[in-house]
C-alpha cells in the first residue's frame, strides 16, 4: 500500500504527477516527480537505506534535511549521495552500499 498523502485537509490534494521508474538495489520502484529518493522509497515501505559500513547495522533517514548523512546511498555509481536531498530521476540506479573491510583496525596489519 502506498504511504503517499494524496489528500490533505489544509494543504489540499496532489494533482496528477509524472511517474518515474528507478532502481534500488536492482529492483524497480516508482517515484512521482518531485519526490526525493528517501520519500519515494519510504512511500514503497523501504525504511532501510544503507548499512553501517563497519558494523552492518541498518540505517534509514534521520534528519531528512541533509545534516546527518545517515541516508547516504550510491547513485549511478557516485557514493555519499544524500537520499533525502536528491530528487529521483527516471532510470536512476540507487544502491545501499555494503559493509566495508577494515584492514587497519586492531594494529593495522589485518589482525
Amino acid at each position, binding site marked *: 500500500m502506498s*504511504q*503517499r*498523502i*494524496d489528500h*490533505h*485537509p*489544509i*494543504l489540499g490534494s*496532489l494533482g496528477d504527477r509524472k511517474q518515474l521508474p528507478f532502481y534500488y538495489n536492482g529492483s524497480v520502484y516508482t517515484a512521482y516527480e518531485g*519526490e*526525493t529518493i*528517501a*520519500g*519515494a522509497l*519510504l*512511500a514503497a515501505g523501504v*525504511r*532501510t*537505506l544503507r548499512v*553501517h559500513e563497519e558494523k552492518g*547495522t*541498518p*540505517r*534509514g*533517514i*534521520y*534528519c*531528512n*534535511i*541533509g*545534516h546527518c548523512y*545517515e541516508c547516504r546511498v550510491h547513485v549511478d555509481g557516485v557514493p555519499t549521495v544524500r537520499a*533525502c*536531498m*536528491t*530528487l529521483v530521476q527516471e532510470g536512476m540506479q540507487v544502491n545501499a552500499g555494503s559493509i566495508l573491510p577494515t584492514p587497519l583496525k586492531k594494529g593495522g596489519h589485518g589482525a
Partner: protein
Amino acid sequence: MIDLLIIGAGPAGLSAAIASARQGLAVRVVDEFYRPGGRLLGQLHEEPDGVWWNGLDEAARLTEEAKHLGVELCCGVSVFHLTQSQNGWVVSTTQGEMIVPLLLIATGASEAAVPVPGWTLPGVMSIGAAQVMTNVQRVRVGQRGVVIGINILSVAISRELQLAGIAVDRMILPSSTTVSGTAGQPQAVMQSLLRVAHLAPSLMIRMGSKVMGSSWMQKLAVSLYPSNGFSMWDIPIQLRTAALEIVGTSQVEGVRIARVATDGSPIAGTEQVIPADFVCIAGGLSPLAELAAIAGCPFAYVPSLGGHVPLHNESMRTPVPGLYVAGNITGIESAKVAMAQGTVAGLSIAKARGKLKNEQPLSDAIQQVKFIRQNATIQFHPDIVAGRALVGQMTAEWIAN
C-alpha cells in the same frame, strides 16, 4: 559579477535577497536543498486569528518576489569551504568556486539530538524529518508512532502529523541520562511549557479550542502529571513517562517505556513495551554556524539563543569584514523574526555597497525585528532579549578592541 552571495534560501536568506536586490545589488542565493524555502517548508499551524500559517505558501511568495527582482537562485548546491581574499570571499561549492565581495550566512539551525538506546534503527527520525516528509514530500512516516521529547516544536509538529492522518500514540520524555539535559526532567519540561502560560489566551486559540478553556495549563499545574497525561487534539502528552529504549531488530517495532518520578528516574515495575512503527526524537534546535566558524568569526555561548552564535551587531554585521549573518544562525526564533532579520541584513549590505541612498529603511527594519520579537505568539525562550543584548555587547567590545 555579483555583489552578494547568500548561503541559505530560508526565510532569512530570501528576505535578505529581496531587500538587497531592491536596492540594486546583484544577488545570488545558494542552498543545498532541492527547492528554496528552508525550514519554512513544512511549517503549518493555525494563527491566533484562525488563519493557517502555511510555510510552503510563504516560501513560494518569497521565491517569486526574489526571482522577480532578478535574484539568482541556485538550489542543490552545497558550500564546503570559505576563505577570505583581498577583495572579499572565495566560496567553495559543489558547483565550483564563487568569488564575492560580501557574504551573508543564513544557514538556520540544526536539530539537537536526544539519544535514546535504539535510535539508529530505521523508522527513528528527528521531529523535523517527519515534518518535511509529511508536509513537503507528502509521504507518511508510519501508521502509529511515539514522539520522544516534549517541547513547543514537537507539540506543533505532532499536530501536523495528525492532520495528515498519522497517529501519534503519545508524546513522552527521553529517559534522563548524562546527555539528556533537562529534556528528561518532568518538572523542567513542565516549566518550559508553563513559560508560555502568560500568552495563554492566544496560545489556546492556537492550540485548538477543543481542549482549551484554560483547562490544560491548569490541569498541568494543578493535578501535576495525571498518569495518562493530558491530551491535546487527542494526543496524550505524558510528562511522567519516559522512553527507556526503542525496540526492534531491523526497524522500529516499539518503545519500552516506564513511569518516572519527578526527577526523571524510572519507577520499578512500571515498564511496558508499546508498539509503534515510527519514532520521532525532539531535542530542540541549535544554530548551524559551522560556516561562520570556518570564516573565522568569533562566537558567544548563549543558552537562550540555542548555543554558540556568531558575534554580530543589530545590523547583522559580524566582526569579520564582509561577513553578515541572519536568521536562526543568530539564535533560535520564529520564521517571522528570521525574515525581519533578513531584511535588515539585506539593507545593511546594500549600505556597505554604497547603494543605500537613505538610511531610514535600515533603522526602521532594525526596529521591526524588535517589534516582531516582542509580539511573537510563542517565545522559544524567556531570555531571548537578554541573550541578544549580551551578543550585541560582546560584539561591540570585540570591534572596539
